């Protein structure tokens, strides 16, 4: 039923500067060969980072990161691709200069924003809009060999890049100036925005105790122990690993590895990280260093096991693996293998999002490992975290509570909201009763959860979002198109298993579900094109025989009025320097 969705994507727009002059210099045949090679390079680079080359327009290449599926790091992928494209064009140019005596000067613009994306099943019927226009304008404003990054993209990758600001400019055909940054380099790391893992740990005493006991058990033998920490994105898995590493180091050797979200040799990278740390700790009493060659697991698995066992002879060894939901199968196999065959003294701690068990039950080879479910923080704990991150003098207690309530106990959401508010204003505004704009990094995380659903699940979730945060399955069924109606309850239960929904408290009525997080509901709701949303609200007013009809009609009217050109948001208001001037003189 849903043919289009509103989603946030990152767009990389590149063009060859001075191509007309190039056409004069070269025989058409040579020019075409040179351009074909450039297009091949561009396609390869974008694909490597998960981008889709949407179209070639003349000499321009437009790649989109976020279709058909969004990733939480789409903005960083786009920036990395833009940077790599520049490097690869430089090496292509060395060949072209040798062969033809010419070079291609590529200008690039990167921008992130909302688009209305067409159905993936009908190809990428991708509707442009302002996000694409601005990317093209940035490209146009860039000098040869330059990459200009728009403000929205920059906000998502600020900690992973080195940039310098360029003067805001008003592109042709636009009224508002566009802020831009000249990309100097991508400095590495897999996170566009660094996590505040240095923040004081709040809560989690129970989990740390459990990990301590598991380390005792591993140290006492007879065999290795495996624990899987599962939790939703941002709930604090990495922070817990770090806190445990600090404690465990007093009595054990701690090796840490993190799985990158994508890449050609991701598993080898992780194994390499672990071996390098093990090598440094080896203090001479080492077995022959194994090879990180994951293409031949037979010798690698055994080599890693023997190395860890030899290290564990002097003191317990803890291996912490983070972001294992990204791991390639061979890495999961390695964990299983170690759990099955490694001897005493080894504790394997694997942290992953809740989708991991669907592809890897974990510890299934030997007796089941331990699973720690990491729940969101309580509201008090989240408020304490907020105050700790910003300092109580900068964050009034009332605002800290609002931030905590908004985040619903997710520490990453707390962190990102504070950062976002502070970035915008230099300080944290109080108003709006906690209805803050969603930080882009949080929006990206939530979008990924929705993007993974089947078309049917997605439709049902969107219908539910029109009813509200808490809803009764019959209300959703009443909104569903006829053929879907009888399947609604099954789909809602599947969504509950996927942890997007929860079974709601009985006081919300019989057979009620609720969205796990209010941001999931908002994201599902906002992904529906406004016109469809308005129609669904009217249908809800007709179908649901309860007291919410007025609410639904009001929402429908508001959406239609917005589509008809009525700006929902006010223009910015000037800030008086001294709003209380009158009182002072009075």
């Amino acid at each position, binding site marked *: 039923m849903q043919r289009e969705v509103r989603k946030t994507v990152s767009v990389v727009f590149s063009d060859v500067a001075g191509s007309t002059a190039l056409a004069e210099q070269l025989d058409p045949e040579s020019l075409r060969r040179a351009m074909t090679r450039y297009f091949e390079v561009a396609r390869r680079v974008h694909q490597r980072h998960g981008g889709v080359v949407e179209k070639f327009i003349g000499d321009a290449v437009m790649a989109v990161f976020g279709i058909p599926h969004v990733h939480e790091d789409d903005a960083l992928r786009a920036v990395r691709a833009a940077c790599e494209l520049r490097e690869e064009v430089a090496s292509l140019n060395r060949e072209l200069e040798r062969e033809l005596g010419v070079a291609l000067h590529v200008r690039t613009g990167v921008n992130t924003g909302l688009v209305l994306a067409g159905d993936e099943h009908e190809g990428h019927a991708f509707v442009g809009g302002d996000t694409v226009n601005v990317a093209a304008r940035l490209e146009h404003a860039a000098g040869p060999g330059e990459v200009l990054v728009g403000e929205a993209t920059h906000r998502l990758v600020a900690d992973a890049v080195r940039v310098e600001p360029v003067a805001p400019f008003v592109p042709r055909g636009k009224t508002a100036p566009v802020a831009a940054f000249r990309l100097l380099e991508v400095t590495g790391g897999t996170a566009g925005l660094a996590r505040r893992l240095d923040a004081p740990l709040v809560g989690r005493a129970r989990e740390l105790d459990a990990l301590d006991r598991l380390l005792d058990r591993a140290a006492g033998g007879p065999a290795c122990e495996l624990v899987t920490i599962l939790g939703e994105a941002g709930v604090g898995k990495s922070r817990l690993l770090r806190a445990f590493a600090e404690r465990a180091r007093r009595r054990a050797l701690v090796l840490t590895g993190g799985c990158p979200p994508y890449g050609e040799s991701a598993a080898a990278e992780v194994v390499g990280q672990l071996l390098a740390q093990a090598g440094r700790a080896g203090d001479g009493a080492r077995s022959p260093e194994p090879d990180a060659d994951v293409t031949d697991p037979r010798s690698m698995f055994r080599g890693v096991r023997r190395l860890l066992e030899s290290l564990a002879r002097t003191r317990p060894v803890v291996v912490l693996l983070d972001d294992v939901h990204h791991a390639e199968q061979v890495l999961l196999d390695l964990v299983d293998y170690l759990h099955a065959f490694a001897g005493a003294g080894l504790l394997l701690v694997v942290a992953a999002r809740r989708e991991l068990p669907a592809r890897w039950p974990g510890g299934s080879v030997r007796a089941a490992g331990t699973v720690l479910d990491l729940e969101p923080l309580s509201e008090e704990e989240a408020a304490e975290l907020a105050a700790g991150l910003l300092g109580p003098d900068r964050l009034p207690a009332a605002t800290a509570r609002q931030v905590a309530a908004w985040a619903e106990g997710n520490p990453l959401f707390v962190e990102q909201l504070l950062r976002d508010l502070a970035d915008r*204003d230099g300080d944290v505004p109080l108003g709006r*009763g906690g209805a803050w704009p969603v930080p882009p990094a949080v929006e990206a995380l939530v979008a990924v959860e929705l993007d993974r659903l089947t078309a049917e699940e997605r439709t049902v979730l969107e219908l539910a979002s029109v009813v509200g945060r808490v809803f009764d399955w019959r209300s959703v069924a009443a909104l569903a198109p*006829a053929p879907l109606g009888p399947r609604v309850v099954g789909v809602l239960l599947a969504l509950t298993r996927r942890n997007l929904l929860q079974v709601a408290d009985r006081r919300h009525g019989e057979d009620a579900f609720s969205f796990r997080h209010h941001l999931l509901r908002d994201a599902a709701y906002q992904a529906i094109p406004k016109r469809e949303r308005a129609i669904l609200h009217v249908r809800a007013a007709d179908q649901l025989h309860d007291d919410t*009809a007025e609410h639904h009609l009001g929402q429908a*009217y508001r959406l239609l009025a917005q589509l008809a050109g009525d*700006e*929902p948001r006010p223009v910015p208001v000037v800030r008086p320097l001294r709003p209380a001037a009158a009182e002072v003189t*009075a």
Partner: protein
Amino acid sequence: MGAIDVRDLARAAAAGDQHGWDGLVERFGELVWSTTRAYGLSPGEGADAAQTTWLRLAEQLGHLKDQHERIGVWLAATARRESLRLLGAARGVAAATPRPATEPPPGPPGAGEQGREALLWRVVRELPEHCRRLLRVLLTVPPPSHDEVSAALDLPVAGIAAARDACLQDFRHRMSDFSIRADADDS
């Protein structure tokens, strides 16, 4: 989610606290804006009237101590006055009658070709003038109190709920053709 009391925001703003001021703008920015739009000011005129309204608040805040909890009402009334004054000035008269509320444009480019789309815009455009005006203010986020709506539109508080229900039912009636058709499309 415990909303921060308007009185606290007003008190903080009056004491020169920028957070308090920003909080008031966050809370009532859309109400002020909607009020100017409800009187049919263009976006440019609306922006002028809204700025003047906020400027008046900055001047008067110190003297409004007794009205801190009714700041929203004060802002709505001021936005109404400023909107009418601007409309009057535009026509060279002292007082003015409002223009139709936020006249929706004929529809976005391309809408004409599609029956569904054109029909939707017509539903909004053909809703009676007083309903468009009322809904424009009433459906502001965060939702305004009836006192605030009354001040913005110079309507008696007592009639607002009934007027809203009547307008929404009218809207529902106009949309019903459309819903039926959308249902047919889906199945």
